[in-house]
């Protein structure tokens, strides 16, 4: 079977950052592979290693800069990647449907049997693309999967969905399917030196909307990001000042007042 993994290069902000307009200043951002997608990549690579998947293809919507991150996924064992980009994605705030437009076209081309996607992206935290994609392409789906047991012969994925409060739902999902992968599903590997070398020779196909038969109008977003600001601190915490020793002494007094360590 063929597995398609959606991956995203996400930005994160350091402890100190400046907001410029409706975004964080470029110089305050660091880019990395989305944490959830790292688990999705690992799941796909494990399926390949187990002989279940014949090919693992990565797909991303991202600018040229994202290739560095995508190459890390290739170094971990993804066979090849497709990078779709259009300036329309850079200037606007893409909605779920426009991302799904892109992935739908890629699915039509690649015809995967299984799509693995992170539960959410660490930057915008929407958590919706995988399930919306499943609906569009007529695949079954399961969201927030933290255990996966694939029975390719039976055409089934036996998954656990991680519900709130320490409860897991055991679900049998018909293939083809989109599964959104929760952190903790597996232990994502580090790329080996050999993997990193091999990744240099793997293909990242730069793809335009035109290549996919789409136009900028197709991916027009119904959402506009109109403002970004730091939330007002609601903190009424008593901050304990001083060096580590002084702070520890004061904290020890507070803890003893609460009856901690009294025995």
């Amino acid at each position: 079977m063929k597995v398609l993994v959606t991956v995203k290069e996400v930005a994160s902000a350091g402890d100190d950052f400046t907001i410029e307009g409706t975004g964080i200043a470029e110089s305050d951002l660091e880019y990395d592979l989305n944490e959830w997608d790292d688990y999705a990549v690992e799941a796909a690579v494990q399926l390949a290693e187990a002989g279940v998947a014949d090919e693992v293809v990565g797909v991303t919507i991202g600018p040229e800069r994202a290739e560095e991150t995508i190459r890390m996924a290739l170094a971990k064992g993804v066979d090849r990647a497709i990078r779709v980009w259009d300036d329309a994605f850079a200037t606007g705030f893409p909605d779920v449907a426009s991302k799904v437009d892109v992935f739908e076209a890629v699915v039509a081309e690649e015809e995967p049997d299984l799509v693995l996607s992170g539960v959410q992206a660490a930057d915008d935290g929407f958590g919706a693309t995988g399930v919306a994609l499943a609906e569009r392409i007529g695949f079954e789906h399961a969201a927030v999967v933290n255990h996966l047991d694939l029975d390719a012969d039976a055409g089934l994925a036996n998954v656990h969905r991680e519900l709130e409060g320490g409860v897991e739902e055991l679900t049998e999902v018909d293939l083809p399917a989109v599964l959104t992968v929760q952190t903790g599903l597996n232990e994502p590997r580090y790329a080996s030196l050999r993997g990193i070398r091999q990744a240099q020779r793997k293909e990242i196909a730069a793809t335009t909307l035109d290549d996919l038969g789409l136009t900028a109008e197709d991916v027009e977003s119904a959402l506009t990001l109109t403002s970004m600001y730091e939330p007002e601190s609601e903190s009424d915490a008593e901050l304990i000042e001083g060096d580590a020793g002084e702070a520890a002494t004061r904290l020890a007094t507070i803890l003893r007042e609460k009856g901690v360590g009294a025995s």
Partner: protein
Amino acid sequence: MSDVLAVAEHRRGELRDVSAEVIMAGRELADALGGDLHLAVVAGDVDTFADELNREGVDAIHTVAEGEEFDHNVYQAAIAAVLDGTDAAAVVAPNSVNGLDYAPAVAEQHGLPLVTDAIDFEYDDGLTVTREMYGSKVETSVAVEGDRFALTIREGEWEPAAGEGDAPIEPVAIDSVESGARVAGFEEVGGGDVDIADADVLVSVGRGIEEEDNLELVEELAEALGATLSASRPIVDSGWLPKNRQVGQSGKVVTPDVYLAVGISGAVQHVTGMKGSDTIIAINSDPNAPIFDIADYGIVGDLFDVVPALIEEFE
């Protein structure tokens, strides 16, 4: 003018609290749009659930008695039937694990722009949703085009709807659903030797501990304080501590007398699990860490300096 459809949530025979919150959020939206609020109750003991949720502000309740537990295919079919039979054009669902299993599909199916994880919204000639980005570091406003949309709301951000309503309760029939995603059962995770929910004092460790080897330090602190050790999600995901030690949305909800958070930034999923603690103390090197927003006492500093000093105080 258009109506709003809110969707209730239940699990294993019990309504989840967020059901009353989607009613509240749905009522606000219905007022803004000048329409009625419909509530869909799908699967399980729909009559009991409908009675319980017949609160002030609900104009009509639609029950779909198909299946016992959550199944996104049933929810999708039920919501489609209710949208079809009413003037509802906006859908409000919980931003729960199950909400995220059907709401994006519903939005896609009906061509509704979707905004997830709303913490607030305003309506002024159009909907503007407040939501966080970059792991709660910033808040954003997202404007939605048009008056047809789907929204998922974060749990605990709206007051639960109260009072007694007198909405008519109407059963809605749907064709039986051959689901391609079948629930085989449930599993409680996090059993084992220790129940962190029973502890009076918790020392809880997060990503700031950096390496598995450093766990010894917080274990030593827990021992010195006579406390139980718990953790935030990344520690458990890394396999450094078992699942039964995890505090948060997908782990345990704890309410100890004292909760000492060490190197925990305080992501919303974690805070959900410990905000009911009597006294919250946070040690974190980032003064902007959201954990300080709910802490009673805070030390902004390097845990590798503060924790050894604190251990010494109790030896």
